[in-house]
């Protein structure tokens, strides 16, 4: 194997050369493997729920177990998979390359972030098997139940706290990197839009995560000391907990989606052979989404007892935050118009993203409207909404990025036909699984329930079958990628004809990324 970052001699022997690496590319792969493993576990938990819900009536898991399953599904998917998600894996690997840098600003803090992530995840997993058993509060840990339940909340929550610290440090690292380590000639207006999205995401990671950190600490303090901040018997207010929780957790969803949108903005110009339409608008919209996203958290609490005035303001701001997302979708479509389009797997997943995210986003407006929210709050309509935007959006975006940058990261090409098959199977399974949930949700089926009324039987059956088709699609996708890792044909430096800097070095890149520090003289999407 020729010299690449895989073969670099480390001062640590064997696997420790990876576990203690300070190379952003190796760290990106460490995150990729760990986050995808957690994704797999989360998928299994999801399949378990769908199996129980295949028909009304209790089948093979108890109500208590079901509560633990949906809690873990949420905690694992959100905190262990999709929030680190694209930034920690693809961001770590690709962003410094796109800047023309040799590494991130603080390589040792980078690997520390990964260790904090792994230790946090290990602690949270330990909570499954110790004390009162796995948490059963939902991933939202609402007071008072999270204080009163005998399950192992403190350990799980502390694990999430450490993962939050990991995320905060990564945000700090990426922001400093993008400010300080751009190659000569790489002005802000020449940054690839993927890097712009990592930049905007970094600000959210930095400023929002500490709020969940203190909120989680307060849960632990409450469980051990009974201080009473959220206990009405002691003068506290449980709604204040909800405010503090969502002040982070809403911006967190923009941590999930912005990098995926960045991937899309990078892929479309390459596969349409056309420069991006409205570069400045897309860059600015990333910042706008990050900013306005801090102002809308109350839309998770419309039925919790806030004043009408507060609810009207939050609803208005929620509508506002949809505007910059719309700007992106229009610009992407305009980029493809009259382009020379090649529908390879990266573009196919990108098109899937645009379609599924749009459905999710539009239903978000239904949720954000006060009158309809009363009807669908706490139902499967909400579950469908966020799976369309997070899974159909962020995860499909991640799959698009995985295929797009697969040659760069692994030096091999994936098999194109299998990738396309995986997409179509996934797409069919996804829509069967989640569109049914819009239907039952609108008809009133509550979420987080281990059973339901018989009149909801048919859509639930369709949904469960959809989950199996989806699982098959995931299997094909990852079988393809893993098989191609070993047997795929060797990839050239620039298989897609991309114009961003990562394609100007070998596949995979050498240890210090570029033989010579690149000089940048033009923008990232100069085609015609």
């Amino acid at each position, binding site marked *: 194997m020729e010299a690449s970052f895989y073969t670099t001699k480390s001062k640590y022997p064997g696997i420790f050369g990876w576990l203690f690496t300070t190379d952003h590319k190796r760290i990106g792969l460490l995150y990729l493997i760990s986050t995808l493993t957690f994704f797999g576990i989360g998928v299994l938990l999801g399949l378990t729920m769908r199996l129980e819900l295949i028909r009304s009536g209790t089948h093979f898991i108890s109500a208590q177990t079901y509560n633990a399953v949906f809690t873990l599904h949420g905690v694992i998917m959100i905190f262990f998979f999709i929030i680190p998600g694209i930034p920690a894996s693809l961001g770590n690997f690709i962003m410094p390359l796109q800047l023309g840098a040799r590494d991130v600003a603080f390589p040792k803090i980078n690997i520390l972030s990964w260790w904090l992530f792994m230790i946090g995840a290990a602690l949270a997993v330990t909570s499954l098997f110790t004390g009162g058993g796995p948490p059963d509060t939902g991933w939202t840990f609402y007071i008072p139940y999270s204080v009163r339940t005998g399950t192992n909340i403190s350990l799980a929550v502390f694990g999430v706290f450490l993962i939050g610290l990991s995320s905060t440090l990564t945000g*700090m690292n990426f*922001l400093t990197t993008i400010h300080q380590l751009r190659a000569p000639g790489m002005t802000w207006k020449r940054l690839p839009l993927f890097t712009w999205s990592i930049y905007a995401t970094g600000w959210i990671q930095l*400023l*929002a995560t500490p709020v969940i950190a203190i909120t989680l600490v307060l849960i632990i303090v409450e469980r051990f000391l009974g*201080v*009473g*901040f959220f206990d009405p018997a002691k*003068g506290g207010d449980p709604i204040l907990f909800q405010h*503090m929780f969502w002040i982070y957790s809403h911006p967190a969803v923009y941590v999930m989606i912005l990098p995926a949108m960045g991937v899309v903005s990078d892929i479309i110009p390459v596969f349409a052979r056309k420069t991006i339409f409205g570069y400045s608008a897309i860059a600015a919209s990333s910042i706008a989404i990050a900013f306005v996203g801090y102002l809308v958290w109350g839309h998770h609490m419309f039925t919790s007892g806030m004043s009408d005035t507060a609810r009207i303001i939050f609803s208005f701001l929620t509508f506002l935050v949809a505007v910059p997302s719309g700007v992106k979708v229009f610009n992407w479509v305009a980029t493809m118009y009259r382009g020379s389009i090649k529908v390879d797997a990266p573009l196919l997943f990108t098109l899937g993203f645009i379609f599924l995210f749009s459905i999710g986003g539009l239903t978000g407006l239904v949720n954000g409207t006060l009158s309809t929210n009363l009807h669908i709050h706490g139902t499967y309509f909400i579950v469908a909404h966020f799976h369309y935007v997070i899974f159909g959006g962020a995860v499909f975006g991640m799959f698009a990025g995985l295929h797009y940058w697969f040659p760069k990261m692994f030096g091999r090409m994936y098999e194109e036909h299998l990738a396309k098959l995986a997409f179509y199977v996934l797409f069919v399974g996804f829509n069967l699984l989640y569109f049914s949930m819009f239907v039952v949700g609108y008809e009133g089926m509550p979420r987080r329930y281990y059973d339901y009324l018989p009149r909801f039987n048919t859509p639930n059956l369709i949904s469960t079958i959809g989950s199996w088709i989806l699982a098959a699609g995931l299997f094909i996708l990852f079988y393809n990628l893993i098989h191609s890792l070993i047997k795929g044909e060797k990839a050239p430096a620039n298989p897609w004809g991309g114009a961003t800097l990562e394609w100007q070095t070998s596949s995979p890149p050498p240890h210090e990324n570029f033989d010579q520090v690149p000089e940048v003289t033009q923008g990232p999407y100069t085609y015609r």
Partner: protein
Amino acid sequence: MTDLTHNEQKSIDYTGAKLGMWLFLFTEILLFGGMFLLYAVYRDVHSADFHEAAKEMSLVFGAVNTVILLTSSLTMALSISAIKNNRRTASMLYQVVTVIFAAAFLVNKFIEWQDHILHGIYPNSPELLAMSHGKILYFGLYYVMTGIHGIHVLIGAAIICGTLILTKQGRITSNDYIKLENTGLFWHLIDIIWIYLFPLFYLIK
């Protein structure tokens, strides 16, 4: 800097290191901000009770701790200007004094807490629960906020012990003192947070 081969030249991004530290400090401000939010909301609802409860606080302890921390910020700053002027021993001395001040602060806090606890005022105590809601919240906030602040004082002191060692080893020098400077920034933040805690808990009577 001279123990590296020419292949391992260290390039020090002074601006980058400073930028990273300031970004981290913003996160600390937000962390404490969550607790200040709780304080603001509950004091707004229970202003009379907060005023009453504050009378239980010892102004002497609070003021002494304020003077201690402010002076420790001074000695920290002096340690940085000392190393900038290549006065290594002076810098180390100032760092030692800073750590001593930190220890004094923590001892003070311990005595103060012990005093309250012996009087039956601690989270979930029968005496406390018999009081009005506002007072329960006030003391809850007092323990949690000064407690988390105290943990940061401890961490800061430990880090200064680390920079002390680095200064002794000649790894913090007049050419490369960013680690000391960033530690100083952290220390000043801890000081500033106390500057807000002091009036909010001790001076509202």
